[in-house]
């Protein structure tokens, strides 16, 4: 029998029709996640063509990108003041009602960032194909699912047919040896990986993260790593499901139960890459030598250890433009660079373990004067859990803002944004020009580095505070 990778198994198990010389594969989609920004035009298309949603039961919607994260009003509702955002939110409500799609509406118990709620509800399961009109769908690969972002036209294809036309991607194995040192998180690991292979380094490939350092990660840490696969240009990122995966899933609202659970487990245990299976490319690195990472430029590949310096010498057109935008010079060190805003949130780092890390550091400390700190939980469930553990109190006591769930300043569509020229340390995934507000300047880092920076008011090496 041929030896197959995790990707091969999931891919081949979902072929309605294999690829031919003239046509791409037709891939069946198990779970389609929908949000308010990339779906309205797809629903309009269904209406124009008189089509329905083929499998509403495999489709789940939420609101996250343009939704406010400001505190609730006296009526318990989250007020939407931006008329454009209100129109998008209204359109999703109407579309879900008309087409029979389950919606986790703004402020409701299950609402949150689409890539946070899928796993926490147990919707995301090993071996599935999962798509969403959002590139960070790669997050769900942490469960051994094949999960990737699609455009709005494809959202329409999946709504109408539950299928996608797809060329078969190549496979890239990234093996991580060793163990992450203290103060170095999953976020630092993925930033180091992207710095190593480049923002185009994964183009055309599905990455499988493997090796002892990956196996040692918690599920939430695994999601952080898979989340940023797209920042390396990869189609998706995957990890073999293991006991940690099953333990995370057991008892979640949509996870299988009883005999179905046992049957699912049997199938899931067979998903891991077969010993000796071949990948198209392989890369490896050692986690033990990693340090906390921080970006200095305007793409996530422009990252260095927090004590390092911006590359020296003539930067060339692309890096030169990035450094101009960031107000940095070749050879400059980032440690101690003053900061205006710290953002802790996004589908990369807004889960309970991320908030625990940040709160652990902020407990008994104060945010530096003049620094604004926003803590935005990834979902209503994360918010409740954090409040149950008293983390909201820790954040507030330290001088941080504690918000409602959503994408918030990761994408700055909802009014949470940087002012021109401001510097932010952000736990999100993109430091693109203007991503967090026009003229805003982003340093990407881990929740630990973000919290340490909030206290210092300057870019800080968290390891010094952990001693």
């Amino acid at each position, binding site marked *: 029998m041929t030896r197959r990778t995790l990707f091969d198994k999931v891919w081949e198990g979902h072929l309605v029709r294999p690829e031919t010389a003239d046509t791409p594969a037709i891939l069946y989609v198990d779970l389609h996640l929908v949000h308010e*920004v990339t779906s309205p035009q797809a629903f309009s298309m269904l209406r124009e063509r008189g089509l329905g949603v083929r499998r509403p039961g*495999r489709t789940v919607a939420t609101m996250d*990108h343009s939704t406010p994260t400001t505190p609730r009003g006296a009526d318990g509702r989250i007020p939407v003041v931006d008329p454009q955002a209100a129109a998008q939110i209204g359109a999703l409500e109407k579309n879900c009602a008309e087409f029979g799609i389950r919606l986790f509406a703004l402020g409701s118990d299950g609402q949150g960032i689409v890539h946070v709620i899928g796993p926490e509800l147990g919707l995301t399961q090993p071996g599935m194909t999962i798509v969403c009109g*959002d590139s960070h769908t790669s997050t769900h690969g942490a469960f051994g699912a094949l999960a990737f972002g699609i455009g709005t036209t494809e959202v329409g294809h999946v709504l109408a047919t539950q299928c996608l036309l797809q060329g078969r991607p190549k496979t890239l194995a990234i093996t991580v040896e060793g163990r992450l040192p203290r103060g170095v998180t999953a976020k630092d690991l993925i930033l180091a990986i992207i710095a190593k292979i480049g*923002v*185009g380094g994964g*183009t055309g490939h599905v990455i499988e993260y493997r090796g002892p350092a990956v196996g040692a990660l918690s599920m939430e840490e695994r999601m952080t790593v898979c989340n940023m696969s797209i920042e390396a240009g990869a189609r998706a990122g995957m990890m073999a499901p293991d006991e940690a995966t099953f333990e995370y899933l057991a008892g979640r609202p949509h996870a299988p139960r009883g005999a179905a659970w046992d*049957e699912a487990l049997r199938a899931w245990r067979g998903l891991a890459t077969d010993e000796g299976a071949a990948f198209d490319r392989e890369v490896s690195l050692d986690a033990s030598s990693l340090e906390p990472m921080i970006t200095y430029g305007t793409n996530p590949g422009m990252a260095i250890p927090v004590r390092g310096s911006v590359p020296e010498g003539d930067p060339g057109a692309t890096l030169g433009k990035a450094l101009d935008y960031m107000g940095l010079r070749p050879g400059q060190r980032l440690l101690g660079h003053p900061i205006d805003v710290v953002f802790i949130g996004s589908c990369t780092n807004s889960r309970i373990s991320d908030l625990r890390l940040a709160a652990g550091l902020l407990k008994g400390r104060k945010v530096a004067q003049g620094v604004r700190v926003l803590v935005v939980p990834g979902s209503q469930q994360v918010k409740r859990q954090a409040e149950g553990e008293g983390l909201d109190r820790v954040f507030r006591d330290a001088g941080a803002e504690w918000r409602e769930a959503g994408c918030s300043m990761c*994408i700055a569509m909802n009014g949470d944004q940087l002012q021109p020229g401001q510097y932010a340390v952000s736990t999100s995934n*993109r430091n693109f020009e203007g991503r967090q507000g026009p003229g805003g300047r982003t340093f990407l880092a881990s929740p630990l580095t973000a919290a340490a920076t909030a206290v210092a008011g300057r870019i800080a090496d968290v390891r010094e505070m952990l001693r």
Partner: protein
Amino acid sequence: MKTIQSRTVVLDIDNIDTDVIIPARFLKVTDRSGLGRWLFANWRYDAGGAPRPGFALDLPEARGAQVLVAGDNFGCGSSREHAPWALLDFGFRAVVSTSIASIFQSNALKNGLLPVVVDRATHRRLLAQPGAPVTIDLEACTLTLADGTSARFPIDPFARYCLLEGVDELSFLIDQEEAIAAYEGRTAPEARAT
């Protein structure tokens, strides 16, 4: 769509991402029209919304150009189809680079914007001559410069067929109903989402 004949506009920057192509604050729409106004908004306009003089797209010689030549790894970042919608609405019909991000390519092709990936030498020549006339032939998969030299570019054969024959991918998928139903009939219940 068979051929595009046009002058080029050059943006010699690598890794132009979808937030640069169209910033997120312009995505709060429920239709797809009129996005060309916000194409490269953060580069084209200053903080007050006034056009920045000298931006490549707004130079007089760029008027009517249908081919954008950009640095490596064009279109990286988010899955927003608003990026190709904005480029098309502005008047572009092809984007040329040495590499183009996967989701962007797929979104572009579904809207009739050609992603043209050329070799480094051809790319260098294009970058060096902004405004150069080029011909892109989808049938032959070639990009030809004024001096007659030409480069081949790869394109997904099915997407090319759809563009040349005017076939709609969704209709193609809908026609697979029998195969889809058969697949659903044979998959195990534990693979179901709900």
